[in-house]
């Protein structure tokens, strides 16, 4: 009887299920079904053959990643160094930028600076690359030409090729693209601070510096730490479109990250089995990170993020 009433209830809301259908189909087809491709990592899959037809080879491909030259070392190092540095630098600089922007008392000026700094967030990576290529390339890059004209340089610096400059350049690219976007979050947090605190401080004779030091910064600290913790779950993930453009045959030792490595081995060198194995390593490492981050966030924040 109970089952029957349940079925009747379900039938009564069948329209909701119909509306959910496209979403469930999309999730199943594009997220769950490709997981079956993971068997490729454990078999010697041949391109064009059946997914389950290859011979079982166990964990050989996984071992390859860690033993083959020092691939695992440099790829993981690049991924983690670039992502962690970017995370720390982007968020703290956006926080500082928001605080300073809030000190601009002329409304129109503040709005202009905000609009201008937010714009790079919306342009594509191809355009971003075009811009950096225009300004940083060795012979014709604007920055190099200006430095040479000023007599500060003999020959142009190969910013986009020389591995020495890879990390600073890519971290700056991330900063350039996200400063406006990240500062919006902090500006929202600043506008949430009670105005009475500032008024009371003024009456007590606080200078602007003191107000920032003792009111604004302490009020923003929780936002900053939550964002830092939350985003550190993503340290194994890089933006493929970004790194695919900025990696080249000269700087790969310092620039190549996991996502580009998987792409290069899989779709350029056509080693599907190996690329899938490295992809699995990435996903598993990410899952562990998310789990850890969630535990930490619960401790710090008293609430779960997932």
């Amino acid at each position, binding site marked *: 009887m109970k089952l029957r009433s349940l079925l009747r209830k*379900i039938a009564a*809301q069948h*329209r*909701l*299920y119909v*509306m*959910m259908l*496209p*979403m*469930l189909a999309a*999730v199943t087809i*594009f*997220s769950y*079904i490709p*997981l*079956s*491709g*993971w068997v*490729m990592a454990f078999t010697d899959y041949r391109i064009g053959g059946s*997914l389950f037809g290859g011979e079982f080879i166990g964990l050989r491909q996984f071992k390859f990643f860690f033993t083959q030259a020092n691939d695992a070392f440099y790829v993981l190092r690049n991924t983690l160094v670039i992502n962690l540095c970017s995370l720390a630098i982007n968020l703290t600089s956006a926080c500082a*930028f928001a605080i*300073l922007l809030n*000190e601009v008392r002329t409304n129109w000026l503040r709005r202009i*600076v905000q609009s*201008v700094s937010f*714009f*790079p967030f919306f*342009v*594509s990576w*191809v*355009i971003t*690359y*075009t811009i950096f290529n*225009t300004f940083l390339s060795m*012979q*014709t*890059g604007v920055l190099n030409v*200006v430095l040479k004209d000023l007599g500060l340089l003999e020959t142009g610096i190969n910013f986009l090729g020389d591995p020495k400059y890879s990390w600073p350049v890519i971290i700056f690219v991330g900063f*350039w693209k996200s*400063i*406006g976007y990240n500062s919006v*979050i902090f500006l*929202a947090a600043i506008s949430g601070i009670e105005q*009475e605190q500032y008024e009371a401080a003024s*009456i007590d*004779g*606080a200078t*602007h*510096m003191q107000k*920032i030091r003792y009111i604004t910064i302490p009020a923003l600290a929780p936002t900053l730490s939550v964002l830092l913790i939350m985003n550190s779950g993503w340290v194994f993930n890089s933006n493929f479109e970004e790194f*695919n453009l900025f990696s080249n045959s000269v700087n790969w030792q310092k620039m190549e990250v996991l996502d580009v490595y*998987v792409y290069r081995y*899989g*779709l350029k060198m056509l080693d599907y089995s190996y*690329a*899938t194995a490295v*992809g699995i390593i990435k*996903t598993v490492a990410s*899952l562990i990170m*998310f789990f850890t981050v969630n535990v930490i966030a619960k401790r710090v924040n008293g609430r779960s993020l997932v």
Partner: protein
Amino acid sequence: MAQSGKNAKPGKAGKILHRKYYHDRSSCLSDYLLKLVVGIVMLFVSVITLYPFLYILFYSLSTSGRVGAGLLLHPRGFTLESYRILFTNTTNISHAMLISIARSSLGPLVSLTVNSMGAFALSRKRLIGRKIFMIYVLMTMYFSSGIIPHYILMQRLHLAGTFWVYIFPAMFSTFNMILIKTYMEGIPEELEESALMDGANDYIIFFRILLPLCMPVLAAVMLFDCVHQWNAYSDTMIYNSMRTNLHTLQYVLMTFIDTTTQSLQEAESKGEAQALFNPVTARMALTVIVTVPILCVYPALQKYFASGILIGSIKG
């Protein structure tokens, strides 16, 4: 006087007093320093985020022979020649533009339909099995099958090499669905209850009641999707690089970077830097063309961010 200020409730008197103190105190040294730092930082950030775009615009409007490297503060020898050449000489700019426009209008329409219907169902508390469906959908945020299994799937579904590879894989986004769902949950349930009482079914509730009320979030999501579709290039690179008739503007621009750097190096090595057709000005013109649509919708994008519709979901 300070005493009276402290007691004053937030009103006119308090504000005037606040402003007076504000002026008095800003005269101390540390505040001058602060003003200086603020000025420098604002100038620096504005210049590095604005000047590159201006430079590219000026470059594209310059006569190719007269513009060398170095700073540009205005076009040298104003001309629209680069744009003319781009549309007449080079092979497929107009067609690529059509493809770009097609994917950034059709894509958001499809994904908006899928996402909003899903969000509606999942935001109804009476839905049986709601929690299971939520977990099933949200789980996908935390894992990805990786690029190779996805590539093989696209091959098997015969989406690779067609226009639809731009549309179908992007038809659902967990992020956008949650955005719409959160918004729908903020709409009072009484509206729905009274409609149910009047005998309306779920389709009617969705189309006639919820959708009109969700216009702000739908517009925001739609716009965001448009920008995403317009900006993407990696799907073209991976699935459609052999199909020139499916190339998008972004992809054409990307291939332009490669070829112009090559031809520039060749020209330099042959000592023919002053070639008749300067590929760099053409590249700059194309960059401007690809950027302009984003610039057009930019005020709206900024408005949605400022109103917190898109930020809210990031915070929680």
